[in-house]
């Protein structure tokens, strides 16, 4: 199989990740509840995962909050900020390239009368995008939430500059790093962020069912899930310490054990891997553009684009082509990729797209073979 759906989840996972999950299933017990040997060992595993994430993303270990995915992290972050603000409704700014994991929580908060929001149109240049943010600012703007890169089209947005704009005005800044964590160098400081949200199972090569919300030091959010934390048990309110405050209930020890290994794996030769993937996506771009196709983004440039490409075969439904490719044992994603607004931006709202997304597992040989199979499909339809 040619697996080109790494923006959904990376596949296959490294052996070290699988081994860590297996080991945690055999030996793991609940964390932060007892102090016997097995509990201590499980606690060490989780803490060392926090340390590894803290090291890579420039945070303190206690500000690494494990979640079940990036969607949960974004919900915790967005709602945690909005609910803590005393004067409501607050104004939120976001972009037209966002995933539903950003747009839906914000829309829900709007329906509850807790916020109003503006969706800025991202420009062809970073300058245009930043100007759009400036012109959307209002007196009650208290939060900016934006994606680091579009999951449907791969466009990388100027998050660090927008973060600086937010910081200068005392506006909270949340970055959705779903498509960039594990591929680009990201830290809280570099992005001028208050919160980074990311899945564990995409660029970080961890198991599905893992994600992280990473907080800047000193930030306290309102909670949206309350329960047992293994600490401060006599209090009926959530403890005011991270990560306990945000990790009520039993955490996913096997997932976190796997994520620790995934973090280590993805960090090795990260930049070289990204640059190799970009070479492959440029090869695919050139080859696909020689076919009767439509590609919606400019020729991929390093750091302006992720190794991800959305295209269509002229006159053919994206899902139909995707099905034909599946018969050729090629894995791609088709449709709207849970990011309908981004399709409106690029003019594909009526038709969706075929999305190719690469990882360091992919090779030039696979890319060549993909083109061969795509041509085979085109000859059939």
């Amino acid at each position, binding site marked *: 199989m040619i697996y080109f759906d790494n923006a959904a989840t990376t596949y296959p996972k490294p052996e070290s990740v699988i081994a860590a999950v297996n080991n945690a299933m055999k030996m793991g017990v609940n964390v*932060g509840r007892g102090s016997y040997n097995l509990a*201590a060992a499980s606690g060490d595993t989780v803490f060392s995962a*926090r340390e590894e994430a803290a090291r890579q993303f420039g945070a303190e*270990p206690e500000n690494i909050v494990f979640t079940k995915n990036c969607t949960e992290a974004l919900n915790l972050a967005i709602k945690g900020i909005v609910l803590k603000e005393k004067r409501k409704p607050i104004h939120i700014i976001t972009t037209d390239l966002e995933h539903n994991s950003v747009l839906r929580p914000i829309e829900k908060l709007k329906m509850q009368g807790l916020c109003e929001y503006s969706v800025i149109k991202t420009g062809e240049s970073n300058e245009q995008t930043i100007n759009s943010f400036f012109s959307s600012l209002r007196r009650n703007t208290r939060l900016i939430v934006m994606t680091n890169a579009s999951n449907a089209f791969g466009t990388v947005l100027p998050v660090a500059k927008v973060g600086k704009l937010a910081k200068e005005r005392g506006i909270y800044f949340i970055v959705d790093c779903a498509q960039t964590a594990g591929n680009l160098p990201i830290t809280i400081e570099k992005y001028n962020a208050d919160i980074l949200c990311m899945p564990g199972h995409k660029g970080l090569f961890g198991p599905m069912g893992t994600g992280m919300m990473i907080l800047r030091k000193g930030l306290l959010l309102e909670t949206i899930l309350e329960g047992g934390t293994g*600490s*401060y*048990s*006599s209090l009926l309110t959530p403890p005011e310490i991270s990560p*306990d405050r945000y990790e009520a209930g039993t955490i996913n020890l096997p997932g976190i054990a796997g994520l620790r290994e995934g973090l280590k794996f993805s960090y090795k030769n990260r930049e070289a891997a990204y640059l190799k993937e970009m070479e492959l996506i440029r090869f695919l771009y050139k080859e696909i553009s020689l076919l009767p196709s439509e590609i919606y983004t400019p020729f991929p440039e390093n750091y302006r684009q992720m190794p991800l490409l959305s295209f269509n075969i002229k006159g053919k439904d994206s899902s139909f082509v995707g099905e034909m490719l599946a018969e050729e044992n090629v894995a791609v994603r088709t449709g709207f990729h849970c990011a309908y607004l981004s399709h409106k931006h690029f003019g594909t709202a009526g038709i969706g797209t075929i999305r190719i997304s690469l990882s360091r597992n992919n090779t030039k040989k696979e890319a060549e073979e993909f083109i061969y199979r795509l041509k085979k499909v085109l000859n059939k339809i």
Partner: protein
Amino acid sequence: MVMRHLIFGSATSAQKAKKVLERGGMTVSIVKTPEKYSRHSCSYSIRTTDSDFALMLLKKAGITVKGKY
């Protein structure tokens, strides 16, 4: 040698302190704090034979201890 215990609010804060002390060359372990010493119930402590040295290392690392017993 007298065994002393340094109290922390949560398992994670105790873990962080343990790492600091281990990097400083100490051998310590984490235990559940007896409830009579735990202000809000369910806290964790680090057991050590040299609490003065441990406190010095933790102070240097900016880690606050909630109490000791």
